[in-house]
């Protein structure tokens, strides 16, 4: 087990080098000058030169790259060209918002999708099954950003029921930082007004992001449950007189979980892409929005920093999936 984890972690190194090389070369090929964008139209040539000097942009590309990787090993992602703050600091500031959004959506989509999938498998061919099928076709064809805009039109522009941007109303103060997730922190602080406001702000973005995984999860749960429902141990469990609930959730679901988790892990990249779009639509101050911001301003240290974190997360989630196999299914322990 430990060997597996270590080997996988070592395999990450060439991967991260790959990302940084590709992006480093590409960003330095582009004709636009990030320094000019950062300093604006009115900057004097001296200012531009001074800032280029400060960022050490005049040294050859390979030297810059070596320096970058050297810093990266120490956990230093360099400084943002725009905000002039360390990229790590920026990412840390924006990350909790993304975490809050994605966690909420993962929990919500699992809570809805897994029972739906089970119910579709048990009632194969009946209306629940049909509904799950139609739902999955719809969500697979729905552009994330359009779904977000539609919800904004219905719940914000037309009815005014829910806010369409930011994490809190402007007149409220965010809770003291514990995790950086407003709902959690405000609950710990016992501030119900802030909690409910944060929750209200969370509803639409979380719903949009859940849309990405919900149907797929339901579909995989269905087919995976269909596979195990015919197995001998399910028949035995039923014959023993266990309640249907216990048969489905304890005996069948636990065995059906491996494919469900695999697919969920594989779809994590989609979830990240979805988070970028969702955060853009709802002005949600997470790392996805930070990435889009840095792209617009060709802030490449920030952009590469984001790409490194995204790749790392993606790889770690997939490693986590492999570890979970071993936890769920003893036969898969290496």
């Amino acid at each position, binding site marked *: 087990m430990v060997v597996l984890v270590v080997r996988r972690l070592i395999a990450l190194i060439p991967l991260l080098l790959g990302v940084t090389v590709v992006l480093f070369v590409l960003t330095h090929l582009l004709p636009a000058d990030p320094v000019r964008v950062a300093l604006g139209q009115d900057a004097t040539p001296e200012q531009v030169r001074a800032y280029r000097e400060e960022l050490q942009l005049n040294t050859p590309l390979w030297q810059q790259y070596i320096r970058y990787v050297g810093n990266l090993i120490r956990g230093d992602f360099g400084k943002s060209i725009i905000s002039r703050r360390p990229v790590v600091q920026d990412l840390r500031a924006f990350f909790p918002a993304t975490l809050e959004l994605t966690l909420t959506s993962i929990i919500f989509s699992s809570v809805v999708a897994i029972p739906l999938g089970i119910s579709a498998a048990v009632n194969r061919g009946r209306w629940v099954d049909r509904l799950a099928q139609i739902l999955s076709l719809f969500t697979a*064809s729905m552009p994330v950003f359009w779904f977000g805009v539609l919800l904004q039109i219905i719940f914000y522009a037309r009815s005014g029921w829910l806010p369409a941007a930011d994490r809190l109303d402007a007149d409220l103060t965010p809770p003291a930082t514990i995790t950086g997730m407003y709902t959690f922190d405000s609950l710990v602080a016992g501030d119900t007004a802030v909690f409910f406001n944060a929750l209200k702000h969370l509803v639409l973005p979380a719903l949009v992001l859940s849309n990405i995984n919900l149907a797929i999860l339901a579909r995989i749960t269905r087919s995976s449950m269909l596979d195990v429902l015919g197995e001998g141990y399910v028949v035995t469990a039923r014959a023993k007189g266990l309640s249907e609930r216990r048969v489905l959730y304890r005996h069948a679901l636990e065995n059906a979980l491996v494919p469900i988790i695999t697919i969920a892990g594989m779809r994590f990249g989609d979830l990240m892409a979805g988070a970028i779009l969702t955060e853009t639509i709802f002005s949600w101050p997470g790392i996805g929005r930070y990435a889009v911001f840095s*792209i617009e301003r060709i802030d490449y240290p920030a952009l590469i920093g984001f790409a490194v974190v995204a790749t790392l997360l993606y790889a770690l989630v997939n490693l986590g999936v492999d570890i979970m196999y071993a936890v769920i299914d003893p036969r898969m322990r290496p």
Partner: protein
Amino acid sequence: MRSAVASERGKGGPLRKPVPAARWAKGLSWVVRDPTTALAAVVMVLLVVVAAVPQMFTTYDPVQINPGIRLEGPSHAHVFGTDHLGRDLFARVVFGTRTSLGTSALVVLFAALIGVTVGSLAGYGGGLVDEALMRVVDLSLAFPLLVLAMAIVAALGPGLRNAMLALIFVWWSQYARLARGLVLQVREREFVTAARALGASGVTILYRHILPNCFPPLLVKATLDIAVAVLVTASLSFLGLGVLPPDPDWGGMVSNGRTFILDAWWYPTFPGLAIFVTVMALNLVGDTIRDILDPRIRE
């Protein structure tokens, strides 16, 4: 082109087993029994026609600015309403079809060509070539698709051409992996051994005997991928990284339109609906092709 039967019987010809006509016929009769799929096929044909000759479907110029009629709601004259510059939204959606479908089809085509070439060489060649090529493929499969595409477009500079390049760059590896797997399977079949025994060269075996037998799964993936490509290119345009204004583009229209949701719900709604309908039709048609080509997975 020789008929399938002739090529099967032809002396020295490829010993491929094409999908029998009967199975297509059976598959197509199934389409007729399934009205949803039939409708999707009709929508698909219509979309292709619209993409080919958009000027047949509207009399308006999609880039003609008309400040007198800014943000007007749907009416008889402007079925989808007008945008913030007074342009006819229906005309823009119609002209956007070509961009959207054309871009997506091209991206998938090139990704598939590159991927299949690399994958089949790796699968057939084996050894060091295989090892080296597949490490590159693993590397590029380890990235989340849209995130990497975004970063690359950002680096190259926004625009349709760069968006397409970035997508091909991040997409080909999926085809490489699939093609390699298929080639490895087919390589061991008897007719390949037979062809080799008859003295066929490696190139002939790969291109005349092995690849044609790998075609169905690749075709299914490509069809379904065009649906994904429509979504991804629209997403890039939505983020301001794809088609540049004033060219009409669905993702870009939704992006512009969302600033006006308080006054003009129709502005982002109709272009998004076009994406939704297109992707749904592609998904349904893709599923049907898969069912026809691979009856094993039909439930």
